């Protein structure tokens, strides 16, 4: 964080600022429109009216990595797609998180063969793993809320300079 680099830990002042920053991050975290396979269909129904992820601040699925804070890897990552996924992760601006949705993204799932990367944590650092094949929309929303706990728990001190 910018202020942390400049002012260092100032007790009360930075904790209230942390809460303010955490509040602003968790209430408007825009995921990147990055559907790969079957989990993308469940992500779409989680985004649609019935389950409505917009209630949790995910109002828009931004197609370009420049305007997104969160990458939901929804689906199986093939060997040909892995470098593209890494490039998209690098092009996202800094406070960024990754949810690996579904078994195929988390550990290769039912496809244990030459074509699938066995777990997307070999390509991008993952914050939250959501189990299920495909996980129900409620499971994805539960994953999102666990990510929000992680974001709220972030202290400025440990943030990488």
């Amino acid at each position, binding site marked *: 964080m910018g202020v942390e680099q400049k002012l260092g830990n100032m007790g009360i002042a930075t904790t209230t600022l942390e809460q303010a920053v955490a509040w602003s991050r968790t209430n408007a975290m825009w995921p*990147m429109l990055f559907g790969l*396979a*079957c989990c993308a269909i*469940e992500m779409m129904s989680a985004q649609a009216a019935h389950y409505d992820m917009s209630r949790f601040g995910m109002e828009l699925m931004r*197609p370009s990595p420049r305007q997104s804070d969160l990458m939901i890897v929804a689906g199986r990552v093939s060997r040909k797609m892995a*470098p593209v996924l890494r*490039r998209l992760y690098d092009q996202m601006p800094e406070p960024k998180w990754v949810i690996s949705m579904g078994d195929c993204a988390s550990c290769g799932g*039912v*496809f244990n063969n030459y*074509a699938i990367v066995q777990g997307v944590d070999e390509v991008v650092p993952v914050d939250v793993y959501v189990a299920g094949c495909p996980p129900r929309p409620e499971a994805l929303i539960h994953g999102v809320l666990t990510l929000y706990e992680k974001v709220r728990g972030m202290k400025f001190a440990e943030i990488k300079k």
Partner: protein
Amino acid sequence: MPDIQEITVDDLKHLVSERAIQGETVLLNMGPQHPSTHGVLRLLLELDGEIVVNCIPDIGFLHTGVEKNMEAKTYQKAEVMADRLDYLNTVGNTLAFSLAVEKLVDLDVPPRAQTIRVILAELTRFQSHLVWLGTSALDLAAMSMFLYCFREREYILDVMEMCSGQRMMTTYIRPGGLWRDVPVEFEAAVRNILKTFPKRVDEYEALLTRNPLMLDRTYGIGKLTGEECLNFGVTGPMLRASGVKWDLRKDRPYSGYEQYDFKVPTRTEGDVYARYLVRLEEMRQSLKIVQQALDKLPMGPVRSNNHKYVPPPRSEIGVSMEALIHHFKLWTEGFEAPQGAIYSAVESPRGELGVYLESDGGPRPYRIHWRTPSFDNLQSLPLMSKGVLVADLVAIIGSVDIVLGDVDR
């Protein structure tokens, strides 16, 4: 982790026009991560301003090696992967796999199971057309259509979950019948769908069919004639929108489809608008089939009693010795299919979904090839997109209704 390979113009020079080599036209990636490619399809576009001079599709970004993986699994375990191929037509995939295995081992299926299979397959066709209608209307800026379609889709997913416990990847259809009988509330839920959905389809029709915006964006765009379709191996709604009346449910019926009377909608223009009309009419016909199948649902067993291939019901295991032996053998080693090679095809929402299954007498398929419709339907995209605007290309991709799990396998 290898980096992305650098592609220069000269190693594509046999594909692009010479104006690209002189740098007059722009080579642009409508790449794997793009909102309107309906999945991880990469189109290398050669653009002259907004006009698409050349479109070179590049697929394989979702290649899961299903055919190789299925060779390493027994027939029961391999079916689980069949669901994930065309993830919008999950019941259709397991139906294609089960019909292929039943044809190979010559297994009978009780009539009740066949009727329930038809009901679930037609509901899946309806749900797949809903996702197509929602996403391709969203590409044409009809945002609310996406929300309406996914609202209806929840009802169908509830029925699937009621039967099998899983919303999408049900694996409910097994070689020899079904996993178990449908629950009691099944009939009421499907009746409710049959009561409300025709009105919903009329709502979509009212919103889009005579909408001047939709007409400007879809009428006369992406034309394909019947001969071109057949030459490209295009099947399904795209072929029927070009005037060729070829529907596997009608012409090569399977699983009891010959007992139902339904119309196969065809148009002659063969453009994006004709495909929209054909798919909308197919949604109505699917409801008619479900109606007739539900009225005629016979009682009886849902699994064949040929226990060499079909696990016996749990109640019998405690009683008879053969059932225990069959059960134990089937779930540890799987059944040995006779030596031979067969090809059996079903009509998926996208076209002819065929399974070439070859067995060498062992418990595992020696070779299984999935003839998926989107693989061939996508090959006609470069022909359709010559000289159109990029915005029209988006409408054409929507009308082809590709599912990348289907294309890359």
